[in-house]
């Protein structure tokens, strides 16, 4: 019984808001982030926009420390999720469990649909079949694909369409009950209908989860996000309510970008 509690409840040590101050990041010699500070509110959708190579993905990957995997990458500044300083001796795996991630290209594991979703819970010690069944069903329902997939749980996840694969990846991330989900251009490889489905999903999920999404699609940002941050050359130029940022940007560079003059 205790095991179940451990797996089902979100890890208590983390909150759901993200606060960063004075973040600097280098890839070897190249400085990819400069003095970025931001307060991302809990249980809302926050979008990052900006031209290619400005450091959006880099910044996003700081929140679950995927940057640790890049040799020569150096991070400075304070990153807090809730009250926890995530670069201060936290267990990385526990952090990543709490901060899920969805990648640009869907990356389902070459396993069955069921095993894909059960992968995370199994990692954290859930072994009982009934429990796993329950988690798989809940996660798929949350990702609005239970009806589509319930009859093919045992089939390969690689046989799904691109859009289905991406939603499966979202379901896979949800299966460990994360408090925060990071999405790096989750729809850029998808058709408009699949994109619409994922956008709906984001809105629904934001009731219980903090979502940070990187997007190149400005309409997408206005459609789904509560907050928007604009990056340029490694700096966070502007951050505020989405409506404000798009309706009356404070910085002229933001204005030029969203009216399409560069990028």
């Amino acid at each position, binding site marked *: 019984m205790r095991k179940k509690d451990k797996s089902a409840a979100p890890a208590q040590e983390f909150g759901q808001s993200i606060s960063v101050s004075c973040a600097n990041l280098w890839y070897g010699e190249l400085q990819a982030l400069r003095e970025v500070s931001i307060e991302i509110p809990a249980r809302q959708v926050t979008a990052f926009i900006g*031209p*290619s190579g400005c450091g959006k993905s880099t910044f996003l990957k700081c929140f*679950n420390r*995927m940057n640790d*995997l890049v*040799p020569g990458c150096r991070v400075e500044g304070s990153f807090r999720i809730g009250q926890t300083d995530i670069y201060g001796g936290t*267990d990385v*795996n*526990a*952090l*990543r*469990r*709490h901060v*899920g*991630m969805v*990648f640009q*290209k869907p*990356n*389902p*594991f*070459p*396993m*069955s*649909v*069921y*095993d*894909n979703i*059960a*992968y*995370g819970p*199994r*990692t*954290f010690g859930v*072994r009982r*079949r009934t429990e796993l069944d329950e988690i798989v069903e809940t996660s798929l329902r949350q990702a609005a694909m239970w009806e589509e997939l319930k009859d093919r*749980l*045992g*089939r*390969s*996840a*690689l*046989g799904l369409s691109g859009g289905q694969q991406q939603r499966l*990846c979202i379901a*896979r*991330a949800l299966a*460990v009950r994360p408090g925060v989900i990071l999405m790096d251009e989750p729809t850029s490889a998808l058709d408009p209908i699949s994109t619409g489905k994922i956008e709906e999903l984001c809105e629904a999920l934001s009731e219980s989860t903090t979502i940070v999404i990187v997007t*190149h699609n400005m309409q997408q940002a206005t459609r789904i996000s509560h907050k928007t941050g604009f990056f340029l050359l490694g700096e966070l130029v502007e951050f505020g309510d989405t409506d404000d940022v798009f309706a009356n940007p404070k910085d002229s560079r933001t204005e030029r970008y969203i009216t399409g003059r560069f*990028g």
Partner: protein
Amino acid sequence: MKASRIRETAGRAVFAAAAVVCVAAVVAVFVFLIGKSLPAYGKLGVWEFVTGEVWSPDRLDTYDAPLSGTYGVRTMIAGTLTATAGALLVGGVLGYFTAVFLAFYCPRRLRRPLSAAVSLLAGIPSVVYGFFGIVFLLPLLSHIAPNNGSGPLATALILGLMILPTVVSLCRVSMEAVPQAYYQGSVAMGATHSETVFRIVIPAARPGITAALILGVGRALGETMAVVMVAGNAPAYPEGLFGSFRVLTANIVMEMGYAGEVQEGALVATGVVLLAFVLLVNLLFGAVSGRAVRAAVAREGRGRAAKPGHRAAKRRAEASPAGAPAGTSSAAASSAGVPSAGVPFAGALSAGASSAGIPSASASSAGMAAPASPAPRRRAGRRRAGELWQALPYRPVLPRLGHGAALTAGILTGGALLLVLGFIFAKGLPQLWQNPSLIWGKYEFGSHRITVLPAIVATLWAVALSLIIAVPVGVMAAVYLGEYAGRNSLPVRIIRTAIDILAGVPSIVYGLFGMIAFVPLLGGSGSILAGSLTVSMMLLPTVVRSTEESLRAVPDALRQGSLALGAGRLRTVLRVVLPSALPGILSAVVLSMGRVIGESAPFLYTMGSVIGPLPHGVLDGGATLAVALYQLSGEGWYMNEAYAAAVVLIVLVLGLNLLAEGCGARLERRLKGDCHAKKR
């Protein structure tokens, strides 16, 4: 959380330990080679040993007393070089043209059977080739030869046949890797199929072809048994087409069974000379393939004249290949084609004029490409086709001749396979049919009723045992290299070099090592365990390399997906990466299996060469099937039994391959997850 960290550390340690075992194996082989050969070199003198023309050892020679034998390997160095050159001439040429045939001329219906035939040829153990040489080739040649037919010609034919599959498959791969755009670019300019193949596509594949030939040479250098069976083996210079001669590997295998102190040292020293040749060839290979890689990189760089710019632009370019890129490409093609426009093949283009023409043509098209968007590869390919087109002096007959040669080669290769298999099966199957006790009979001491059952059992033991040793160690070492150690860090470079060297050591040298190192340790006479240990050292590099290769093919996205879910390295490796790499690992296992069954040189003195009673444990010895075939055919009294053994050997190799392939297919389906969710 604590427990998981301990698991991580333990996992890492285990993988690192496996890598260390690989290094230790190399160190052991080298310590052995140096330790055993140095006294010999000291006593005999390096120069005298290498250039001495007389080899007449005395097994009573010791290091403390004056020598009564003479030890010089010059004739054998000449022998090895002759055999290798002959093999290259036969197998290289035939293989090259067979590859051309397979890649460009083969009717679609024939393609699969012929490729299957080539891989079949690769699977046939070398003793079987040697046996075929004894029973078919030598009698045939003896009609025109002054002797029984053995000598350089027979050796070249048999060795050539042996390296044929290596050459064919590697050449073919590199020919088929040439971008389609080259072909299309040339045909679009009015060239015929043959002209395009021989003047555009094959020149573009040249580095790969060179590499294939060099690998073939490496194989021919290290081959032992097949050569022993047809070369005659008298320690004399190879002269003319016929006449007994000896190669370095043969020298070792002929005498190691009963060598005295100095003689043994001299044999190890022979191994060192052999290894030096192999390493030289490997270096050459490294240089060539390194250049090939660099050339490819350079080509790529030129294709992307502009640094990949904005993602959206890139996407647009990919989405509409018919837009701007197509326009510029036709411009590039036409500008490249200008000098020969209209009458493409009229004037032979002098090399000077065309080489002056190339830079301007490519520069102009690069100029066009630069400001727009990253140039798609296809266009770079067309442009390059144009360059190659002009760079080659035009020889109108060459393509037509090439076509003919390719056809001939295809027929010859197919014919050779049919001949080898057909002959052996035609002679062997009736034997088995009339006399099933050959397989199932019970061994009787001193009887003339031979049974190969003990040999089959010993072979299967050796296969199982050596795989059990080599596969886990090799796979774990590869995991350490690919998943844990930093790319190109010092330990990784050391381990890689170690593995490369290990891969180059000829199998007979392993046999020598096993005989001197493992056999005394395990009771003094050959045993299955000693043989398996010896052979598993030989398998390690294959397993490590192909596992690494297949680990590299696993997309990084999968690793990241797993890590991002909070899984540790160990779990990511065990549950996501390794399963995805399993088909590649499996094919390495199959390959290794084939080698264990087919090898005889390393077993001869580590596992025993007696066709004796059934082995009851790993400390019992006994000939493997391949060794048994060597023994039976060598004595000349048991030819019928030898045919039967050859049939069994071939069937065993092919059967295990088929089995493994079947398992592989099922595994692959399973891997992709197409089964009911497993219960763990």
